[in-house]
């Protein structure tokens, strides 16, 4: 096979898909949660008439608008990546996963995009009721979108409900079984919760920053910090519980993935140790330099210290996932998950002691934890996707048999273009986001529709005395 710098077309296509999808998911991981947060803020504003909620709504909607745009454009790429780089997979799996993705477009993407304009710009045109409805539709749309695409991904992990046709295609037999495949409920719950947790951490991190900058008296900062910390305190433990359930489900349906996550090369008939750290050596089929707790893995996975657990020695070498990547990305995710739990507990203690708004170290911790949701989400996806290897459709279709008949130079060229464009464009986007986050929400905060910012509208807005006051 033709190669570019030692990379063949298959590996390049995998890197390209991994890169574009990882980059893409960062945006929805944030907008799914943020859309709901905005709907809640708007509802609170309508219910209480407290201007602070409107202020916060307008503050976050500017951030939402930019993030959503980046999610849309990086998402369009995904709907074509399947065909450009994985055409054989698309031909074979298209009859099963294609309709699910079509439903995602029909039930979610149009809903989000159709009501986004009204949510962003239409408050004064349609009145508060319809505007609230638009906010809800956008929030619901983001969640529906996640539901369909996670069903697709889950079917690739735990396929069922299909037969294999004469032409090699997967043909749908039972749509109910396809959509509600065994790993779907767990994956959906885990991913949606991750999105809400990620958003809460960002909001908390932004608030933490403003406390440290001396804006602790700002009511907007206080409200968003309090809301974010409640969310972290409730959702972080919930997420750990869901993650554990998801892991048990994976053990049942994709044992090789769990073996890689645990670093279990050997079978343990009398209770498997929990390997905290170690260096996987897949060629030698062993873990080096391990720090382990005897029998703890059996306790976690089987709720029995002495339960036997199979290792990768029961899986042929050519069917094993890459252990190093899976082992480490899993540890990154779990470690961050427990750090989030720690932040949540800490915030509860500070709240109980009445020092939520003055606990400087808590604010520092919240700031540091701000971006960790994105890291944990990405690490989690790497764990589950690399853990599915060497298959695209688990145990049925190999990744090597899924790739498009493209030459390595073509894939390499487009990969370089994607990397260059993504870092330039989304790097700029993140810069704009950070600049918006760098100023605290202030009285008379303007939404996107009323900005007299450098570009938006030519004139000033009636009734908004000085929209830039307090900015920066």
């Amino acid at each position: 096979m033709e190669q570019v710098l030692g990379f063949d077309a298959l590996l390049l296509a995998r890197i390209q898909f991994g890169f574009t999808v990882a980059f893409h998911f960062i945006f929805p991981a944030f907008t799914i949660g943020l859309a709901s947060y905005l709907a809640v803020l708007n509802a609170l504003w309508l219910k209480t008439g407290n201007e602070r909620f409107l202020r916060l709504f307008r503050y976050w909607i500017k951030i939402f608008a930019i993030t959503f745009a980046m999610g849309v454009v990086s998402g369009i790429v995904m709907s074509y990546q399947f065909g450009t780089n994985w055409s054989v997979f698309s031909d074979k799996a298209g009859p099963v996963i294609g309709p699910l993705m079509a439903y995602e477009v029909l039930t979610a993407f149009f809903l989000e995009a159709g009501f986004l304009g009204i949510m962003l710009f239409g408050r004064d045109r349609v009145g508060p009721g319809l505007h609230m409805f638009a906010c809800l539709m956008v929030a619901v749309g983001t969640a529906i979108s996640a539901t369909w695409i996670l069903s697709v991904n889950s079917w690739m992990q735990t396929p069922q409900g299909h037969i294999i046709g004469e032409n090699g295609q997967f043909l749908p037999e039972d749509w109910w079984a396809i959509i509600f495949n065994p790993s779907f409920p767990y994956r959906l719950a885990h991913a949606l919760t991750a999105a809400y947790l990620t958003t809460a951490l960002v909001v908390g991190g932004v608030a933490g920053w403003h406390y440290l900058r001396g804006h602790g008296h700002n009511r907007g900062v206080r409200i968003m910090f309090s809301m974010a910390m409640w969310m972290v305190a409730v959702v972080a433990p919930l997420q750990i519980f869901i993650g554990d359930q998801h892991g048990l489900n994976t053990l049942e349906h994709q044992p090789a993935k769990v073996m890689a996550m645990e670093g279990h090369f050997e079978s343990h008939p009398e209770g498997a140790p929990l390997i905290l750290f170690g260096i996987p050596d897949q060629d030698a089929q062993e873990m080096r330099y391990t720090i382990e707790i005897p029998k703890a893995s059996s306790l976690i996975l089987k709720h029995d210290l002495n339960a036997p657990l199979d290792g990768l020695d029961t899986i042929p070498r050519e069917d094993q996932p890459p252990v190093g990547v899976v082992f480490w990305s899993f540890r990154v995710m779990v470690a961050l998950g427990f750090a989030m739990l720690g932040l949540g507990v800490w915030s509860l203690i500070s709240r109980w002691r009445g020092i939520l708004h003055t606990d400087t170290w808590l604010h520092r911790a919240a700031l540091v934890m701000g971006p960790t949701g994105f890291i944990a989400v990405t690490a989690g996806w790497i764990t589950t996707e690399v853990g599915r290897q060497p298959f695209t459709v688990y145990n049925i279709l190999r990744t090597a048999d899924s790739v498009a008949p493209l030459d390595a130079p073509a894939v390499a060229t487009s990969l370089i273009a994607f990397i260059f464009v993504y870092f330039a464009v989304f790097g700029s986007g993140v810069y704009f986001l950070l600049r918006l986050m760098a100023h605290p929400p202030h009285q008379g905060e303007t939404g996107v529709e009323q900005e007299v910012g450098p570009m938006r509208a030519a004139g000033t807005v009636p009734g908004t005395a000085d929209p830039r006051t307090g900015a920066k």
Partner: protein
Amino acid sequence: MENLGISFDLTVVWALILALAIYIYVVLDGFDLGLGILYPLFREKKDRDLMMNSVAPVWDGNETWLVMGGGGLMAAFPLAYAIILPALYPPIIAMLLALIFRGVAFEFRWRTETRLSRKLWDGAFIGGSFIASMAQGVILGALLQGIEVEGRAYAGGWWDWLTPFTILTGLAVVAGYAFLGACWLNLKLEGEIQHRVRNMARILGLVTVGFIVLVSLATPFLIGIYWEKWFTFPQIIFTAPVPIAVAIIGIALARSLIVDGRDWLPFVLALALFGLCFLGLGISIWPHIIPPSVTLWEAAAPEKSQWFMLVGAVVLIPMILAYTGFAYWVFRGKLDPEQGYH
């Protein structure tokens, strides 16, 4: 041509649904891509703000139809999706990257602080719009001129898509989108700037019709079956009304842009013009989805997939059209240059 007798089975229904989605995409994103192409002709910041404001609330929805086109093709005709995308790899990747630049420019533009940075994102909007339009025209031309298929996969090289014909269709789409954009601005703006866009629309309309004629003349020479369809008896009886209707619409467009005062008329007529071109392309390609070798039925998803999606599509597409229409209705009317759209 044994298949010219139409059988209205599910595959045809799905071909029509997909064609509808692609047509809607072409005209909706067409006019907002057109704004990007016209951008260099407007130097002043306030004019550019107005142009952006005229589509800011709707561009997201416009672009969603492209996802529908890609996703729908994969769902309804997975084999076609699996052949066309690798075959047209370079123009598709170019289109996707260009759409990224112009899509984010809608948001980033308002966030810039320096002149340089603003110029940079204006440039991204212009370049992205132009390249995306050109790439879409090239994709269309490359599909029309035929794709080499072996078994269930693309069998040609990765430069096959680049020919004089595809360059012609690329430029035709750029001109057509710019024309749509000018008609849209004619609808949304007033005063001196509307006068300017109306002048542009006149010229661009002429250029667009010129390209339609050129592409129409070149197409029958690409593949033998196209020639048969358009120039031999008795098919010509069924195909001749299309160019005649194009001529009538062209005259009506000229009238509406030169003498008639109704601002919405040129835009609506432009939509009809695009619709006719689309119909013409459909006639050429039918009953194939990838000329000259893969028919709709060969590429179609199994009936179970078609039914499953159809249930949803029948309910959801009218709803989507309704709330998309509502969003356009909310932001209807002329833009006030003093206030954006609030």
